[in-house]
């Protein structure tokens, strides 16, 4: 079948005409001569010729079939499903293979691989590793062998690939930044020539291409005979252990890659240089954070001294109780800078480590299913009434029975057992409102710097997940909406920077205002609403007269019935820890985190300490 596989021979950019990018080119060449090397991931910013270099591979491996996997591919086309034509005509269910069959023996290209649904990427990687595609769906079973190389490209600024997916790639390379003037001009010149006169450019690199085609053919033949000296196996495991690589995929990938490299260099033996080069290709994405390593030797080591970020790991519990803070309406007002951002843990998913306090199911990112909005990603046999019918799957389900059913005048006869409904996933329907305590107590010991750093990290996270974010601050006697929910995280950043700190803590009022904003008509009813409360919970301004914290708790209980998810980030520090924020979170039915716990690296570290020491 040729549909979908476009013939691009004439328009293919010549592989040798790609300026620089030696590592990426070597990686691709390795993958194209070795059938054992399967996943290659190429990362780099937009406009750095990632796709060009991948697609250009055809110019030097003419037999290569490259299959482009579109972002909105559906599962039935990817893995296969029932053959509808055959079902209608013969009343028989047989399996019709999908793209994974078409790509067998070729190369599957996933551009923007970080933007695919996780299910799709996962499936592709599973099949790639297992070497066979086993399908059980729509009443048909199918299985076929399936061997292909996967090349993915991505721009890390658009979101990361989770580490378990990352680990499945044998090779991961970053595009070089070409900053040298002459090279840049050459890039331009060649690109423009290619656009105006593709044959001209191909002709001027004709010799190089012909040579490379020969080299690749030769290397393919040589590869099975390439030997790895025993001593080098040892070097491999030493290297991977030193870098803290988990699992054995890294070791295997290194051996395979170094063999391919040796074959490309016309050698029958792998040498140390091959290993070094292979390490750069295979281990970069597997090594653990170097900071993590430093902590490794002794869990009793004092935490790193970051003057900006007060420590709150187990190690700092001996810290003297903090002095009572001035909590008057005092005029002191300060604008703190923003602390260093970090990678945030997946804080909105019910975390396994904690009791799941939320009664509402998380549907962050693409994990949730809701009534109607969102895009249809799959279908299922309906439970109860069908309201959201998935027409195509329904027709597919009905197809095999058409021959037996009395069609009369109808083109197709549907029975209730045929009905399938859509499974929808809303990907960008989350609105996050940050309710930030900007009172004087937050300014103590520059706590606000760390708080702002945390909020910035949460904002970055929100950008990558495409959430809408709003910012509300409460201090002195009021709560101020600094930014109505918007998709512009840049604006949020600006407001955050300017946010002043100082004054008392009207917590109850802040809660009430934030909740009424989120329940207002302006909010989309279909959105997942989340309120992230960043505070130490030390309320000292009551709604009217009375106890300020009791007011806040009362308010919290009232809000807990709203269709809003609550996340409380406790900014309190020092010992003994005051459990007010935690109690508040309980009353709201929310999820509770300590400020420090949101930092994924730090969290990993504190878990490790808890386990080991």
């Amino acid at each position: 079948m040729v549909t979908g596989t476009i013939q691009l021979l004439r328009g293919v950019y010549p592989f040798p005409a790609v300026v620089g990018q030696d590592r990426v080119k070597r990686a691709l060449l390795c993958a194209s001569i070795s059938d054992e090397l399967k996943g290659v991931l190429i990362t780099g910013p937009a406009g750095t010729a990632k796709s060009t270099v991948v697609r250009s591979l055809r110019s030097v491996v003419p037999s290569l079939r490259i299959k482009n996997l579109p972002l909105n591919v559906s599962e039935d086309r990817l893995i296969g499903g029932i053959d509808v034509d055959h079902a209608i005509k013969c009343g028989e269910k047989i399996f019709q293979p999908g793209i994974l069959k078409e790509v067998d023996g070729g190369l599957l290209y996933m551009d923007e691989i970080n933007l695919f649904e996780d299910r799709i990427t996962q499936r592709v990687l599973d099949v790639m590793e297992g070497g066979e595609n086993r399908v059980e769906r729509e009443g048909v079973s199918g299985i076929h062998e399936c061997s292909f190389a996967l090349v993915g490209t991505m721009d890390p600024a658009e979101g990361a690939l989770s580490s378990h997916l990352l680990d499945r790639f044998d090779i991961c390379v970053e595009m070089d930044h070409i900053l040298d003037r002459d090279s840049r001009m050459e890039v331009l010149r060649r690109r423009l020539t290619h656009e105006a006169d593709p044959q001209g450019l191909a002709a001027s690199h004709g010799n190089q291409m012909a040579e490379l085609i020969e080299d690749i053919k030769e290397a393919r033949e040589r590869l099975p005979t390439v030997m790895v000296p025993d001593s080098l196996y040892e070097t491999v495991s030493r290297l991977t252990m030193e870098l803290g690589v988990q699992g054995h995929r890294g070791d295997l990938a290194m051996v395979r890659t170094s063999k391919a490299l040796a074959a490309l260099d016309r050698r029958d033996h792998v040498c140390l240089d091959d290993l070094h080069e292979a390490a750069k290709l295979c281990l970069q994405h597997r090594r653990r954070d170097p900071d993590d390593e430093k902590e490794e030797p002794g869990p009793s080591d004092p935490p790193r001294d970051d003057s900006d970020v007060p420590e709150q790991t187990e190690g700092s519990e001996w810290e003297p109780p903090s002095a009572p803070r001035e909590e008057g309406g005092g005029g002191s007002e300060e604008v703190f800078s923003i602390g260093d951002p970090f990678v945030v843990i997946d804080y909105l998913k019910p975390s396994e480590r904690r009791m799941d306090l939320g009664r509402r199911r998380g549907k962050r990112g693409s994990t949730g299913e809701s009534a109607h909005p969102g895009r249809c990603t799959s279908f299922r046999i309906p439970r109860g009434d069908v309201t959201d019918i998935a027409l195509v799957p329904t027709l597919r389900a009905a197809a095999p029975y058409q021959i037996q059913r009395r069609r009369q005048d109808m083109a197709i006869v549907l029975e209730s057992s045929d009905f399938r409904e859509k499974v929808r996933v809303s990907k960008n329907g989350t609105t996050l409102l940050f309710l930030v305590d900007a009172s004087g107590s937050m300014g103590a010991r520059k706590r606000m710097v760390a708080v702002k750093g945390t909020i910035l990290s949460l904002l970055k996270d929100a950008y990558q997940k495409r959430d809408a974010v709003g910012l509300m601050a409460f201090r002195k006697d009021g709560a101020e909406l600094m930014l109505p929910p918007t998709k512009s995280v840049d604006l949020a950043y600006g407001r955050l920077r300017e946010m002043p700190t100082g004054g008392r803590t009207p917590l109850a009022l802040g809660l009430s205002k934030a909740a009424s904003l989120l329940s207002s008509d302006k909010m989309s009813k279909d959105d997942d609403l989340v309120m992230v409360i960043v505070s130490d919970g030390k309320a000292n301004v009551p709604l009217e007269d009375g106890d300020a914290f009791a007011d806040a708790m009362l308010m919290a209980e009232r809000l807990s019935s709203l269709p809003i998810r609550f996340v409380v980030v406790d900014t309190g520090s020092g010992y003994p820890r005051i459990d007010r924020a935690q109690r508040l979170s309980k009353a709201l039915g929310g999820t509770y985190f300590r400020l420090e716990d949101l930092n994924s690296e730090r969290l990993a570290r504190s878990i490790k300490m808890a386990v080991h020491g």
Partner: protein
Amino acid sequence: MSRRPVYPFTAIVGQEDMKDVLLLNVVNPAIGGVLIRGEKGTAKSTAVRALTELLPAREVVKGCPFHCSWNDNDRLCSSCQDSLAKGETLETETIPMRVVELPLCATEDRVAGTLDISHAINTGAKKFEPGILAEANGNILYVDEVNLLDDHIVDLLLDAAAMGMNFVEREGVSFSHPANFILIGTMNPEEGDLRPQLLDRFGLVVDVHGERDPVNRVDVVKRRIDFESRPDAFLEMYEEDQNRFREKLVEARDRMGDSEVNSEILEAAVEISLHLGVDGHRADLTLVKAAMAWAALNGKEKAGTEDVLKVARMALPHRMRRQPFEESKLDIRELDQWLQERFSS
């Protein structure tokens, strides 16, 4: 279908920057579209729609629903490819280029195309029903408020823009067709950002403001009222202008086709993007292409540094920052100053 009268391009008052960027794209479609940023009611949509009347005709495969370009064998739809494979010859026809609008509420299946349900039910056979990306092939794709577009629709656009092809692998349909379009988007920056990746796909960017000159403001309103009350008479009044303008554009396109890339503009473009520290090469490419188009539009045979400087403020503002949240390394005024110092000699 009766066509609604289109406000003539030549009757738009002021907004020279916006007109310039739009025309550059007509002269050289390879520039890669334009993003128009600005408040509401600043003639953004009017200008884009008015382009329709100035667009050239193009030669396409006769009867092809995707209007495959006749001379571009690399980008043919699945059915034209099949015809070629069978040894059939493709006939041609000439059709006008036009502006296709992508409404914000469009769903994925309508944008990318999907299974033709009625055909499937009636005949039991699968057939591809083309969507907006198919319509947009060879045309201008216009997205009003592009920053409010749903995320997965943006992904579709990016995917199509990356290769100039739309691949559909859904609901049992496997189909590909060319989707080579000039992307024109408008946005009001206060309502949210555009993803950097999509931003980078726009060749040029222009900021528009309401007309500040009182005399011009009056003119804007007067002409609009004139047009709405007596469209035919209004169009007639501008016919001569429009014709002259069309000719000018045809000449510019011809000149553009004949012109050659020279080292002077390459060097200037690289120098500028190095100074800005942009990673990708799209900025450099756009600078060169836009500079050549600008020269062609102004009747020059050969583009020079001054043309690169002229288009720099259109090709760079949206590329000056690499990451969200990173502070701008440079603002446009600083850039202007640097350009002048660097290239004044």
